């Protein structure tokens, strides 16, 4: 099990859970760009947070689905995963 959420994993989840296709390298380069600009809406982000909880067996704070950018989400999720490690 990964102990850290990577941009590659996030890009894969965006495609599988919300149909938003984005290159992992672009996602990392544009990590401060709002999710909305990638075409990801709030339901899509909610689905990604739910999938992360299921895959990592972790409880992610309820405000994670309010993250506006990839970097914000990675910070919130990785804080949780590191605290558990």
């Amino acid at each position, binding site marked *: 099990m990964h102990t850290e959420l990577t941009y590659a994993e996030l890009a894969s989840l965006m*495609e599988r859970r*919300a*149909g*938003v296709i984005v290159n992992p390298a672009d996602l990392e380069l544009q990590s401060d760009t709002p999710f909305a600009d990638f075409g990801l809406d709030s*339901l*899509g982000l909610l689905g990604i947070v*739910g999938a992360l*909880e299921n895959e990592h067996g972790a409880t992610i704070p309820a405000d994670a689905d309010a993250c506006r950018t990839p970097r914000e989400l990675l910070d919130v999720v990785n804080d949780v995963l590191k605290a558990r490690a």
Partner: protein
Amino acid sequence: MTAKRNRQDEQRRAVITGLGVIAPTGIGADAYWKATKEGVSALGPVTREGCGDLPLAVAGEVHGFDPSTLVEERFLVQTDRFSHFAMAAADMALSDAALDAAGAGEFAIGVVTAAGSGGGEFGQRELQQLWGRGPRFVGPYQSIAWFYAASTGQISIRGGFKGPCGVVAGDEAGGLDAFAHAARSIRGGTDAMVLGATEAPLAPYSIVCQLGYPELSTVRDPQQAYLPFTDRACGFVPAEGGAMFVAEEETAARERGVAARAVIAGHAATFTGSGDWAASREGLAHAIRGALDEAGLAPEEVDVVFADALGVPAADHAEALALADVLGRHAARVPVTAPKTGTGRAYCGASALDSACAVLSMEHGVVPPTPNVTDMTDGLDLVTGHARQADLRTALVLSRGLLGSNSALVLRHGADARP
């Protein structure tokens, strides 16, 4: 009468400028029309995943539909097959009408669809997650994808259409009521409406819901399973697919240089409750009268009838009597057809598809036949065997829902549009 005519003349009127068809007999209006005028039947075994062991043996499935080539991944992941059909058919209709939000203005175009089955395949998958793994495994798009409103919402978002949007939950007859809703929006000031209905009820969960309908045919021979107006009538065969349209304010369409393919001339709806097909006679007759009144037409001006043709003897008999009640002796002379015996009934999509067929019939001057039906009992001039040439200016489309909705729609030839 003169005053009524004058008032109508001042009213903004809706004309159809675009068609998009997804039917078991063909994807796209051209393929569908070619098969329909030749009386092709696409009824066959149910092959959708997980449906093999159910008592429903025959249906009208849409084959060769590849949503990934027609709709972006983002919209596919978030929606059910019925919305995939709707988005693809809406694209065809918009392309036919050469209309988009960039040209017309985002608030100039609205959307109205009808649905009666919803997103059963998507919904079942998520419910299996719920009961198999727990609520945390249900995806958030379940909150929109399996509901009747999904197609309207996604067409609106995808096309950037911010005019009046709505959903008709009017049983199968909703496919006709969507025309009335769109025409009303256009009378009220909207330039154009994307309207219609598509359904995808051939998933295990959806089929199980339908097995409770006593009207559902479970006959295993595709040629015998749906024979309305005959003494072998044994219920109806369900189907998937439907049709989407672009309706526009007549003057706006003309100013864009787009031809009217048909005029939405009149509509009326009634409700007579479930379980009593004899009662639908009066309800349907009242709807036909109302639709003709709104169109300002006399009964003998109807040139072709697209029958509801449920395939249940009491319902077929009630429909024939309703036509006789309103059309009088003309009911025995006017050609009546039910092309849906070759496609099956896609619930709200069935009446939308019949409306597309009515437009194509008037354009080509051809009444398509009623596939698989050779004999008939109800005193109507049902067109069977081969298509019939006829000068068609006015088409009457009828639809009844299994739970008691009755609707009638009058469409007129595009040449009836005001010069």
